[in-house]
């Protein structure tokens, strides 16, 4: 009797529950699907089940129960990933009251972006609406500014948005002048600063090793925060720009067995072999920058991505800052004008950063991947292109951006918000 009751009551309940928490089932049709990991699919169809891509291809019959999104004149790409921003931290950057990017001190591994991440500003929806769906947001200032968070640019509270609360330790390697500009006094200063950093990492590593062996020692909150480097293989995003600094960063990475990601590498073309051999990937800083010296040539910054690609070094693009982070794809587009193949350029906006940041479930359109997709009216690398729709975790993102709301408000001359 009891069993019958159970069957009669509980089983339908379970069934009902699964039916109402109905899994998200969607199908996207598009003129072209740029899968990144495979060939482009003309007149492509993407099936989405839950938050994942179920299938992608050309001749897929659409099963019943799937919501159809038909974008017959659009191109679909995987959502882009910006590997260095200050989104959610810097507010209106010139106003210190709302700018939380910088903490006191030189070595701050215990400071972490996730603690102050503010999701309700105007910039995150705008960045998302222009096709960047995931971003690193990082603190700045000092030799070790702190830890960066990896956020999905959709969600209500910060907790909804973190993919990794602590995604990497950010290190700004004290920069040495280039060889030809040897200034003895400065040189000593720079090498001293470098030595200091090395000693810091060394001490932190010793602290970690002693802890693993159970040797008692005084509690050190900074070194505690550094433990993750070896315990969890937390990536270290280390900025290094001159050839000497890049080599030094690589040496540090190898000596302390760090999960190193090089950042910037302005003079990278002089040490391509060293970077390649180290196996460390590269996050490029903004392509909206200038050459530092006359002899660098006016195209120094823009020819670097092609040189990295040619050498087979894994790299990705980033913008730094926050308000202009939405312009990410044009950084890749500009590199494509200087020899980087458009295909590689798109890869360095999507699949490469996913790989570099260790989130392999993102970055391409393939069965089993998370359905982070953007629907555009053309080539994402072009200045004329706009993103029409955005899907995050399989669901279409709704809500207007500040840009759209301002446009509508001014067009209709409506005083106040609506």
């Amino acid at each position, binding site marked *: 009797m009891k069993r019958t009751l159970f069957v009669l009551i509980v089983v339908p309940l379970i069934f009902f529950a699964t039916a109402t928490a109905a899994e998200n089932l969607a199908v996207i049709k598009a003129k072209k699907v740029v899968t990144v990991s495979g060939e482009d699919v003309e007149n492509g169809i993407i099936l989405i089940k839950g938050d994942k891509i179920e299938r992608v291809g050309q001749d897929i019959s659409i099963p019943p129960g799937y919501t159809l999104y038909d974008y017959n004149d659009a191109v679909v790409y995987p959502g882009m990933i910006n590997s260095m921003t200050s989104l959610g931290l810097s507010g209106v950057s010139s106003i210190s009251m709302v700018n939380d990017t910088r903490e006191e001190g030189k070595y701050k591994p215990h400071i972490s972006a996730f603690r102050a991440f503010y999701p309700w500003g105007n910039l995150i929806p705008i960045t998302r609406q222009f096709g960047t769906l995931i971003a690193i947001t990082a603190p700045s200032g000092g030799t070790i500014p702190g830890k960066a968070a990896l956020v999905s640019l959709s969600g209500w509270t910060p907790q909804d948005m973190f993919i990794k609360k602590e995604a990497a330790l950010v290190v700004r390697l004290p920069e040495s002048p280039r060889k030809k500009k040897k200034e003895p006094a400065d040189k000593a200063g720079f090498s001293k600063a470098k030595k200091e950093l090395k000693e810091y990492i060394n001490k932190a590593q010793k602290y970690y090793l002693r802890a693993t062996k159970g040797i008692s020692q005084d509690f050190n909150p900074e070194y505690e925060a550094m433990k993750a480097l070896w315990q969890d293989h937390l990536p270290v995003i280390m900025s290094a720009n001159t050839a000497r600094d890049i080599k030094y960063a690589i040496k540090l990475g190898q000596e302390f067995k760090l999960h190193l990601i090089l950042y910037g590498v302005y003079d990278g073309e002089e040490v*391509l072999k060293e970077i390649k051999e180290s196996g460390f990937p590269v996050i490029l800083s903004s392509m909206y920058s200038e050459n530092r010296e006359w002899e660098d040539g*006016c195209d120094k910054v823009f020819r670097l991505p092609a040189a990295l690609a040619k*050498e087979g070094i894994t790299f990705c693009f980033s913008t730094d800052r926050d308000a202009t982070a939405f312009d990410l794809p044009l950084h890749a587009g500009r590199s494509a004008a200087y020899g980087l193949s458009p295909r590689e350029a798109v890869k360095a906006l999507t699949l490469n950063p996913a790989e570099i940041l260790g989130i392999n479930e993102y970055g391409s359109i393939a069965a089993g991947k998370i359905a982070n997709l953007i629907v555009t009216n053309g080539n994402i690398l072009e200045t004329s292109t706009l993103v029409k729709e955005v899907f995050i975790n399989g669901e279409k993102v709704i809500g207007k951006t500040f840009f759209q709301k*301002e446009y509508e408000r001014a067009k209709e001359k409506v005083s106040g918000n609506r």
Partner: protein
Amino acid sequence: MKRKIIFLIIICSIAIVSPAQNLLLKNGTIYTFDQGILKGYDLLVLNGKIAEITQNIPNKRKVTEVDLAGKSVIPGIIDSHNHIAVLGGVNEVAENITPEVKMEYQIYPDDPNIYYSLTGGVTMNHAMHGSANPIGGENYVFKLKWGKSAEEMLEKRALRTLKMALGENPKRMSDRFPNSRMGVSYAIEKAYSDALEYKKDWETYRKKLNQTKKKDRFKLIPPKKDYRLEALLDTLDKKMVIRCHTYRAEETLELIRLSKKFGFKVAAFEHIHQAYRIADELSENNIGISIFIDSWNYKVEASEFSPFGLKILYEKGVEISLNSDSSEIMRRLYMEAGKMRRYAGMNDLDALKTITLNPSKMLGVDHFTGSIKKGYDADLAVFDGHPLSSLSKCILTVIEGEIYFDRSKDKYVGLKEKGGKK
């Protein structure tokens, strides 16, 4: 004797018209505003001027020939607001009204930024006074003739323009009046009232002078000469136009009120992030805007903005030109213009106008540059693809028929013969 003079004249004219100012561009896509986009056309430059735009021009004079298959030619880009080629500071901050200072006093022809600007296809620049003062100094217009003297770069045919500035920048000079937008507006109103008083004083003096017998005229004391107020009177006499830095809509309307009250002409508002809120007013008063897009939120007055607002402005016929105000953005103004297609819904030619024809009108140089037209100065930029595409780059920049940037001949372009190169 006569023969000698004729001979001299001929020698001189040969020297003046150097062969470097002749050029034949073959078989390119030429962006004109009066004939549209011409594919597979040639462009002949003689003596620094555009002589002919048609198909299959024979190279009779054996001038330098450039093959442009697959490439496009646009008018040289005009950066309508920047601060390059200026030696020392751009702000005369000690006082708040300084129209007597001229930026051309400190033109710096060796600034490498002149060359870097050329690499993005820019041929003309409007070097502006800073924004610390409600009324700043007189700007200057120059062509980017890298390697030439300041004298040769200076473009005397352009309108004289005076900088004004509203909002945060003039008011943040905390040890000086003004400290509020109320004060900024008043400072300008007061300056013009003073200028009118000054004008009256001189008129009264001159009138008295005429009424006084010659022998007694020495007894009359003339008013003290004031270059500051005379510069303002130049703007009332339409000898000089205003270029006004502003971000917010209400302060812009306030300046329009002042311009009507006193009768100075505002040629364009600079930056003006909130222009889309007053598109009708700008359109009615026939005032253009000179802006940068996608650069915002770096200060409070720049945090209310929408690039899609450009659509409203464009549809209402407000003249839009783009500027860089930056030694970085100046190298990619073509990309910024390309974005006008997605934000304002412009076609290629209208988007291109925002960096060529429109700024040329605002600077009063549209009768000789800013368009590709027969008889105009041969100020041109050649791109290796579509000129508004991020996937293209400028490969050749020509000013008055002379090549000032040639990517293929720049010895620092491309991988260096060391280090990374295999």
